[in-house]
């Protein structure tokens, strides 16, 4: 009996190893190893070829250079801008969209939902190219609006002006990802107890009071997920920015990841680029940790 059980255990172990090996190998080689290699490379002044030794060891020099670079500061600030603007404009708007079409059986709500959500599945690069057309200075929407309302023939080139380019890109990000947050909120709305809402209405609460005191508190979970995904996503913005100007004009729309590409990969500065990657990773990790600890933790 014992030997039979032992045989069973061995068989289980073999089976386990066979089943897990393909995923484990692929994951270790292509995900885990590069992350650790990156952390190592970031300490060297290295072009991606030749040995890593004492001669090109740079310590934390890459990091100090990084934080002294003005374009890196621009990139960091742009990422912060995405986070702040999303929290102030995008998520509340997504919440309003959800309230509009996510409750009851409003006519057409299924169609509306898929139309609002569609930009989210659209390829980022294609979204960027479409908006480049919309912003076109010669015939684009802005120029047309200006000639319609202000009666000028002036060309409006939002993407060519460093002071407006990034805000113009944010509009695209707003449009692209709002549907996703809306769907999260719609899912959250299903969990709001209707009795509680009815009770509040009977007690004479107006719509705003119901939203503030009944709906939002019962959606805390979904709202905290949405904020979390919005912030971590913002650190990794690349495709849309790339399609609309590759970080230009004059590096004004650089984000952390376009900076990594332009100043790391393009110049074959693998040590310096890896330092950028490590900073992105640590920012995400720090946010993750603080958010879990202070925001999500509070709720439980």
């Amino acid at each position, binding site marked *: 009996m014992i030997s039979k059980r032992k045989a069973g255990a061995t068989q*289980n*172990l073999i*089976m*386990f190893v*066979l*089943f897990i090996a393909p*995923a484990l190998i*692929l*994951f270790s080689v292509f*995900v*885990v190893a*590069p*992350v650790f*290699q*990156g952390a190592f490379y970031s300490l060297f002044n290295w072009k*991606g070829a030749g040995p890593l030794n004492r001669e090109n060891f740079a310590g934390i020099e890459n990091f100090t250079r990084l934080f002294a670079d003005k374009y890196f500061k621009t990139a960091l600030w742009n990422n912060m801008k995405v986070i702040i603007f999303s929290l102030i404009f995008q998520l509340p708007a997504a919440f309003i*969209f959800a309230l*509009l*079409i996510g409750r009851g059986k*409003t006519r*057409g709500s299924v*169609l*509306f*939902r*898929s*139309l609002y*959500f*569609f*930009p989210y*599945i659209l*390829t*980022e*690069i*294609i979204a960027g190219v*479409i908006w480049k*057309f*919309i912003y076109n200075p010669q*015939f684009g929407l802005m120029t*047309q609006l200006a000639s319609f309302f202000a009666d000028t023939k002036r060309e409006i080139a939002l993407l060519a002006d460093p002071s407006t380019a990034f805000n113009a890109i944010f509009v695209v990000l707003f*449009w692209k990802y709002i*549907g*996703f947050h809306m*769907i*999260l909120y719609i*899912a959250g709305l299903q969990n709001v107890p209707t009795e509680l809402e009815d009770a509040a209405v009977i007690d004479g609460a107006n719509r705003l009071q119901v939203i503030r005191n009944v709906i939002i508190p019962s959606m805390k979970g*979904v709202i905290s*997920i949405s904020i979390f995904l919005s912030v971590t996503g913002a650190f*990794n913005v*690349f*495709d849309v920015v790339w*399609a609309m100007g590759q970080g230009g004009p004059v590096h004004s729309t650089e984000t952390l990841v376009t900076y990594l590409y332009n100043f*790391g990969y393009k110049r074959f500065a*693998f040590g310096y*680029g*890896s330092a950028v*990657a490590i900073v*992105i*990773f640590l920012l*995400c*990790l720090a946010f993750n940790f603080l958010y879990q600890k202070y925001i999500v933790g509070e709720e439980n």
Partner: protein
Amino acid sequence: MVTKKRYEVIRFILSAIIAFIMFYPILTVLMGGFKEKGQIFSDPFGIPNPPTLQTFGEILGATGTYWTLIFNSVYITGATIAIVIVFAMLASAALSRIRIRGQKALFNFFIMGLLFPLTVAILPLFLQLRSFGLIGSRWGVILTQAAFNLPISIFILTGFFRQIPFELQDACSIDGGTILTFFRKIMIPLSTPVLATVTIIVFVASWNQFMLPLLVLSDTSHFTIPLGVMQYQGQYASGWNQIMAFITLSILPVIIFYFALQRYVIDGLTAGAVKG
């Protein structure tokens, strides 16, 4: 009662206006390809007048670019999905159905991958792929992308497999079946909906992936749709009607797929996010 009805009407009108604004950029593209070159400049956002199919004909008729891109995107996305499904299912089965020590630690090891976006690892990955001779190869994209989709897939599948009662597995082994029988006869049929979720997540991530093929693929004959669109709009910088037609043809498969299966697509993508 009257105010309630009026409220519903206002709500409908407001929703319709937002829907119009949200979808109009897409509509502009869908109409743009049917316009003649002159009209795209004089009336970029209006209805095609007269509509022409010539631009589409030119793109579809030309050997090369468009069909090559579609082929590469289907090839890379298809292979990625196949690898992720097979590898993640096997791993999740092991992590949830075979009782063994150290299981939890391994599960957490995979889940840790959710913290590593592709962007963070891209430079060392480039060097890694170069040392494997995979730069310039579609398999460089496929394997990397598959690896980065494993954590979320394993997370979803393991969660689902754990809910299948162990009694079912015991019953199966009492009847003389091995774990493989159990896998084939019970688990795979039961997991169709959750496999659909994983497929949709991997499909969207892979189909839209830009940075990885940008670094890995160098030969235009290997380009995927996002790379191709980027290159095409650089080449035909002033031929916006051509770019619009090209984009229309590129997103048409996705539009059909989306509006046919919208419920599954929307639920699948958000389920993955919420669970992640």
